[in-house]
């Protein structure tokens, strides 16, 4: 057993069976962090002392036959926009420099209640937006890992931690997950509480999960989904059993969206996606073409407008005091966002609602829609985290999405496919994803 290769589910099972102790698992991951972090720079803060104390405590509980929950003894990482009581939460910005919250974000608290060990805070772009984090892609250090959940993706891909909390306002969970060759899940808007998460845009923010299996992200969703009175966006929809065995992985009905996505993708992504589609069809999936609705033509503009105005609104007071602390791209977004007329911002929200309504006709015949996750593999250079073009429409409509690795590019960088489902259809999304992942297989670990 290579301990740092354990997924959340296999680690939790090994701990329950007393094959691995929480202490041994934690120390294996800390060793991995020590050796890889100088070149990957995935972590904003590693809570060695806190995690070790928790691991000892949880190990004692296992010995006594007492388990707190499905995550007992398993370490997790948290993007540094999630409040974590007693730990720095700096959102990748000097503006929040030195800030230590007194309470956990609801999602962090729920994972701890399930027995998880908070290992530390992973890097984010500044305020989870465009100014990049220092993190590098584990597959090629000269390439971006994507963002804004840069540290989450790099840390999971590099086997420093089996799972990380992320977020998505445009493409910030699925894009870095795809660039780093792992699984990334963004649930329906409102499915998972955002209480205690530094906002980017209130009507667009989603909690996301990154791991190395569909089973793992399903478990994380199960542990964190559900109404939170502290979050006004939080849905009251009942929580089904998300474990992938429930629906039973079965060949899904897949609608391929080629318009726009195949036009924007590079040749290699088109070829790999097409080969993936063929592979899934041969394995029994029903695959047909799907067509985008008319409102798609304005959805990217509606998305960007929403982000800019809401960022400007959130930062208005802070910006008065601390403008010089903001990095250049955020400065521009906040300043120009503050100039956008209210009537056009509201029109952007109406376009988004129109798109969400029109999408019902598109996915009516399918279990999931499919696109490549990104137009290219992870770009070279660290000055940009790539483009959320392929995610932002679904984020704008609040639809649940997942990315699965589907191969490597000629240059050795991961590629992914994105599945999209109707609102609150995470069960069928996860079942389709599990089936596809079984057919496609895993990609190897990055050559670190």
């Amino acid at each position: 057993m290579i301990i740092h290769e354990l997924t959340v589910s296999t680690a939790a099972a090994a701990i329950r069976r007393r094959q691995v102790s929480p202490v041994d698992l934690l120390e294996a991951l800390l060793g991995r962090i020590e050796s890889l972090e100088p070149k990957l720079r995935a972590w904003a803060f590693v809570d060695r002392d806190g995690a070790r104390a928790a691991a000892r405590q949880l190990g004692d509980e296992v010995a006594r036959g007492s388990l707190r929950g499905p995550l007992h003894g398993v370490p997790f990482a948290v993007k540094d926009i999630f409040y974590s009581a007693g730990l720095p939460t700096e959102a990748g910005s000097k503006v929040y420099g030195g800030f230590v919250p007194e309470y956990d974000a609801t999602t962090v608290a729920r994972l701890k209640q399930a027995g998880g060990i908070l290992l530390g805070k992973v890097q984010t772009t500044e305020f989870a937006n465009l100014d990049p984090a220092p993190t590098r892609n584990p597959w090629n250090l000269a390439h971006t890992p994507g963002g804004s959940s840069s540290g989450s993706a790099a840390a999971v891909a590099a086997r420093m931690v089996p799972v990380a909390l992320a977020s998505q306002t445009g493409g910030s969970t699925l894009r870095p997950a795809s660039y780093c060759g792992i699984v990334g899940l963004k649930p329906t808007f409102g499915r998972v509480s955002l209480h205690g998460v530094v906002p980017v845009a209130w009507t667009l923010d989603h909690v996301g999960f990154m791991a190395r299996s569909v089973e793992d992200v399903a478990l994380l969703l199960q542990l964190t989904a559900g109404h939170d009175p502290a979050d006004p966006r939080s849905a009251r929809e009942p929580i089904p059993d998300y474990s992938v065995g429930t629906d039973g992985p079965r060949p899904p009905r897949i609608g391929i969206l080629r318009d726009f996505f195949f036009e924007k993708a590079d040749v290699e992504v088109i070829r790999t996606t097409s080969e993936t589609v063929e592979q899934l069809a041969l394995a029994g999936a029903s695959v047909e073409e799907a067509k985008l609705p008319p409102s798609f033509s304005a959805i990217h503009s509606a998305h960007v407008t929403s982000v800019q105005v809401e960022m400007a609104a959130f930062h208005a007071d802070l910006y008065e005091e601390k403008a010089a602390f903001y990095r250049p791209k955020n400065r521009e977004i906040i300043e120009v966002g503050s100039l956008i007329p209210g009537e056009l911002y509201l029109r952007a929200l109406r376009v988004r609602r129109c798109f969400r309504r029109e999408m019902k006709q598109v996915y009516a015949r399918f279990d999931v829609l499919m696109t490549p996750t990104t137009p290219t593999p992870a770009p070279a250079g660290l000055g940009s985290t790539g483009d959320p073009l392929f995610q932002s429409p679904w984020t704008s409509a609040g639809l649940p999405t997942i990315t699965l690795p589907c191969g490597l590019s000629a240059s050795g960088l991961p590629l992914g496919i994105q599945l999209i489902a109707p609102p609150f259809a995470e069960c069928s999304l996860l079942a389709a994803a599990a089936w596809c992942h079984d057919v496609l297989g895993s990609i190897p670990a990055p050559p670190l």
Partner: protein
Amino acid sequence: MAKREIRRAALAQSLLAAAIRRFGVDRAEALRTRIEEVADQLGDIALFPVDREEEPAFYLERSE
């Protein structure tokens, strides 16, 4: 000039004027590229036909 281009140009001019008033000439000039991009995006939104009865998607409805 096409309607879209007229609208885009008017939006860019209006945003630039607002930027000058708020941030001064130098900063407004530094923001010009982003202002042009935003004017493009706002033009898309302004010209997209939205039904009069379509309400904003504040905290999107739960299951529609």
